């Protein structure tokens, strides 16, 4: 197990290095780094000073090492617009995105698994069929448009929920600002979280249904029924437990995707998270923030994948064995 974790961590470090190289080449070598990293409003003297301080007069490999050592020290440049550390700006917005992604995951799990179970147990019933039809819609509907429609129905027509922003935040553990602790904040959270959850909800319904469908045909389920166990016990223990491993994996892997998709939801609902910051930065050509966002998100993804892989191998020994062979 330890060998597996070490090996996977080494792979992650390699991927991180490759990605940092790609980001570097993309931003510093393909585009003109002087245009990208120096404020276009700067005058000649400032430009010359910035070129020297950024080391843009040095050869490319030397620039990469400067960039890399800066990144390792947490220095990813200064935002043009906000005139503060780009990394600090992103970390400041991270709790809002995380809160949104975690809420969306919760909604998807709490609704998706029971609905999928229901559809799997009664595949030909009215409920089962409508759940599956609904899940196709969940895949087909473009996220941003559903967001608009949620605003139209629940904010504009019914006046039940606010249409944008995060509402008041309270500090969780005295550190992290969160919305869900106050009633008003919670109301702000409902629409964006539901919007973000829809795709995962559809995915979990399909996954749970397929798993249930398969598990019901297995001998151990037939045997459990033959033993005369209550239906609730057969489903709750024998079926659910066995379909949980792929579900846990997908929930984990999808968490990263949620952070990516949050870009769209945050833009629709003006939710002040990392994704909204990225879009604003692209619009204002605030490149240091874009670069910092990329590195942070790549790091987050690699971390999530690593954790999911380790959890998966802890849950299912077969993975570990085949990995160490190959």
């Amino acid at each position, binding site marked *: 197990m330890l060998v597996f974790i070490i090996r996977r961590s080494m792979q992650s470090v390699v*991927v991180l290095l*490759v*990605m940092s190289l790609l980001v570097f080449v*993309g*931003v510093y070598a*393909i*585009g003109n780094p002087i245009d990208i990293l120096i404020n276009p409003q700067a005058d000649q003297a400032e430009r010359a000073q910035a070129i020297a301080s950024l080391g843009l007069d040095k050869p490319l490999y030397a620039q990469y090492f400067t960039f890399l050592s800066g990144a390792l020290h947490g220095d990813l440049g200064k935002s043009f617009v906000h005139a503060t550390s780009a990394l600090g700006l992103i970390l400041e917005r991270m709790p809002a995105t995380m809160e949104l992604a975690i809420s969306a995951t919760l909604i998807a799990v709490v609704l998706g698994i029971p609905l999928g179970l229901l559809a799997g147990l009664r595949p030909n019933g009215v409920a089962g069929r409508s759940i599956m039809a609904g899940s*196709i*819609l969940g*895949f*087909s*509907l*473009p*996220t*941003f*448009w559903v967001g*608009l*429609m949620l*605003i*139209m129905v629940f*904010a*504009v*027509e019914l006046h039940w929920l606010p*249409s944008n922003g995060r509402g008041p935040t309270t500090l969780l553990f005295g550190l992290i600002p969160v919305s869900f602790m106050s009633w008003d904040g919670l109301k702000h959270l409902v629409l964006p979280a539901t919007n973000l959850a829809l795709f995962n909800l559809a995915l979990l319904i399909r996954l749970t249904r397929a798993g249930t469908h398969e598990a019901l045909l297995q001998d151990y389920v037939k045997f459990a029924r033959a033993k005369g166990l209550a239906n609730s016990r057969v489903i709750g223990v024998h079926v659910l437990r066995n379909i949980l491993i792929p579900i846990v994996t997908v929930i984990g*892997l999808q968490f*990263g*995707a949620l952070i*990516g*998709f949050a*870009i*769209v939801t945050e*833009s629709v609902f003006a939710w002040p998270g990392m994704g909204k910051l*990225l*879009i604003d930065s*692209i*619009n204002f050509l605030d490149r240091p923030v*874009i670069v910092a966002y*990329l590195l942070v*998100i790549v790091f987050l*993804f690699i971390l999530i*994948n690593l954790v999911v892989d380790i959890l998966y191998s802890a849950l299912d020994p077969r993975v570990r064995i085949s990995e160490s062979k190959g």
Partner: protein
Amino acid sequence: MASPLPVANAPARSVQTPAQRVAADFLANPVAVFGLGLLVLVVLAALFAPLISPQNPYDLAQLDVMDSRLPPGSPAPNGGHFWLGTDDQGRDMLSAIFYGLRISLAVGVISTVCALVIGLTMGLTAAYFGGKFETLVMRIVDIQLSFPAILIALILIAVLGQGTGKVITALVTVQWAYYARTVRSAALVEKRREYMEAARCLALSPSRIVFRHLLPNCLPPMIVVATVQVAAAIALEATLSFLGLGLPITEPSLGLLIANGYQYLLSGKYWISFFPGIALLLTIVSINLVADQLRDVLNPRLQK
């Protein structure tokens, strides 16, 4: 981009060509036929947009600011009606949607075809030659597919800048990996078949073996993936355009129309965003319905 399959009207004969069998199987599912019909309508509307639109929405002479933001069904000055309302420029939404559909479909299809060609070539050569090249290509595919498409597209737009060509580049870069992975797994199976061995024994050139012998036999799963990916490309382009990072204003796709209506949504003028969204939804759903049935029809394991 209508159905690539010939429609078999003749009743099923005892001996069918594969194309006839696929067509007959496809038509057996009423939901899929509905999807196909819808898709044909959408494609026709896009192709003949200038002929069926009540006005040319981008001819400024035909627009009147006095007509702006009218609700659906309002009478139009030329005696007709704005059946789906007008936008902030006084543009008939129905006409704008037909024109937008054109651009959305064109971008989706063009980027899918480019991605298909690149993905097919990379995946097939990787599977055929194996070794270090295969490892390298599949590593890139794995890494790329572990990131959500929207994120990769946004990163590319941020680095490359905006414009139609750049949006298509971003969509192609996002998509080629799906094809490379699918075709490689199909090719790995086909590679072990006897006909491949026979082709090698005849000392045919590698390019001939890959493209004339291997490729046609790997196509069925690719058709399914390509169909799904057209829908995905259209949705992704709409999302990028909605975020203001997609196509320029001179080429208003459905996503841009929806984005234009966003600010009026809060004041209850829903139709500027709502109807382009419905058009987008119908397009994506119809493509997905067709793809769903194609997947069943082309899957050899499910053949009767």
